């Protein structure tokens, strides 16, 4: 394992120290926690938005703390859900009396830890609502199982719910729009190489020299199939088809597109992927309102990408276009 770290067990601590040192004009770290909140938190009259999850997905989620998006981000150990006490600290720190929306990616650990934190907050009289993001179409959806994972589409939830909260909407309204985003966003990823959790010291899975995994999750969870490397156009087609099958878009529908790098993918390759994505959508007469290309939800040093499509209506367009000022997302 070759990484720019000091101690594998201190990576989250060291990262947060460096992050706050760089961006102390816009964020602060709650003492003795791994919680990052807006510098001016809590913001009076505004619903608070808290997200979080395991670290290793930077800029998710602390990179989205700021005006127009999140009020707080809770950073767990690498690929490990943060604990309820930390989430509870975040909730308390961002609540101005208007309630707090928790944006949770659909993983067993995240769900349990955020639910326990919500129970703690409710016991303290704080109004809490939860939205669970499950945009990954690589996983079969079923009420009997854990269900679909939350991946890069989560960033659209932060953006749109954050924009509505910034306008002074109620907790119910912010929760409703967050759920609307979840219903209308689908994603799917693929991996070219695995990644290594620092404390584990070796890759979480293996891929042969010419192998790729279609449908890979952001923690290296297996996807749909291992296959041989193919031209980018074909990979884009595979991912997009699965998304389109599920999202059921019609001609003249409007979408936002996100081409997300998983950590070690050159921007060049992401744009190459987007070439095909934009062509396919154009052929289908689907109108692309805006395309976001870059790293939004990574998986340490994994090479690969995910594609997300968000189906838009007038409300979502207005909120997507609204001002945002965070480290990782600006409008």
């Amino acid at each position, binding site marked *: 394992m070759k990484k720019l770290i000091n101690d594998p067990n201190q990576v989250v601590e060291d990262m947060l120290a460096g992050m706050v040192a760089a961006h102390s004009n816009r964020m602060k770290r709650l003492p003795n926690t791994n919680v990052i909140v807006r510098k001016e938190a809590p913001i009076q009259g505004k619903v608070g938005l808290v997200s979080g999850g395991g670290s290793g997905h930077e800029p998710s989620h602390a990179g989205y703390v700021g005006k127009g998006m999140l009020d707080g981000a809770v950073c767990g150990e690498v690929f*490990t859900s943060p604990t309820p006490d930390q989430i509870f600290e975040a909730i308390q720190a961002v609540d101005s009396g208007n309630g707090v929306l928790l944006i949770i990616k659909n993983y067993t650990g995240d769900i349990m830890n955020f639910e326990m934190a919500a129970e703690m907050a409710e016991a303290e009289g704080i109004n809490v609502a939860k939205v669970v993001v499950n945009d990954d179409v690589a*996983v079969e959806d079923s009420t009997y199982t854990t269900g679909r994972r939350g991946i890069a589409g989560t960033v659209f939830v932060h953006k749109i719910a954050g924009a509505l909260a910034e306008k002074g909407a109620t907790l119910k309204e912010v929760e409703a729009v967050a759920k609307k985003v979840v219903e209308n966003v689908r994603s799917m990823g693929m991996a070219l190489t695995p990644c290594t959790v620092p404390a*584990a010291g070796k890759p979480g899975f293996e891929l042969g020299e010419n192998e790729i995994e279609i449908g890979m999750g952001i923690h290296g969870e*297996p996807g749909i199939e291992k296959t041989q490397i193919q031209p980018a156009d074909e990979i884009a087609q595979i991912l997009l088809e699965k998304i389109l099958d599920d999202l059921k878009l019609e001609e003249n529908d409007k979408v936002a597109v996100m081409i997300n790098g998983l950590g070690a993918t050159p921007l060049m390759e992401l744009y190459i992927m987007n070439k095909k994505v934009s062509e396919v959508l154009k052929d289908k007469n689907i109108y692309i309102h805006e395309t976001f290309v870059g790293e939004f939800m990574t998986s340490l040093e994994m090479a690969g990408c995910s594609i997300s499509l968000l189906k838009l209506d007038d409300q979502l367009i207005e909120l997507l276009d609204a001002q945002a000022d965070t480290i990782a997302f600006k409008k």
Partner: protein
Amino acid sequence: MTFDVEQAKKWIITFNDKIQENKEYLTELDQAIGDGDHGLNMARGFQETVKKITEGKYDDLGSLFKDVGMTLIAKVGGASGPLYGTAFMKASLALKGKKEVDIKALVEALAASLDGLKVRGKAQVGDKTMIDVWEPVIEYMKNRETIHSKELTDLSKEKMDGTKELEAKKGRAAYLGKRSIGHIDPGAASSYLLFASLAELFEEGEVAQ
């Protein structure tokens, strides 16, 4: 035999020793069908727990298990933190104010833990989770006049091994669907170590309820 604060501490310390010894093994099991952090998280959380309870003074089992539960909830993270944390918090409520209890009362407390686990994790027997070890083990302890140390260990191991043939319905392994078959569930493996550690307390080999 009776179960008191010293024995409870010994149970947790023995369990921690086994977790530390099997850290790599648990992580490997989790790498096969999960996200590969079970061994690391459990090792970190129980190390902190042992530190906390060896420094602490406890008048009753309830306050000891409360510290265990709270430390796990705060230090483990992932899914195992809230699950093991909930298990010990539920046991703590059942044993509140008790300096020592007979084995029957301990088993009742563990049955409360099991109920807590099922609510928190929304899992049932057959879902390929820790419940596949917990439920039959609690049933065994409830229904026997005497608990045999070896039987308890063997049953936990058998049930852990049994998860190998199951298709995961809960947790990250569920994403694998049928591909999860053929692997032992990491939570079932750590649960086996928990009950094997409990069995070691019964030095004479068996205890009457």
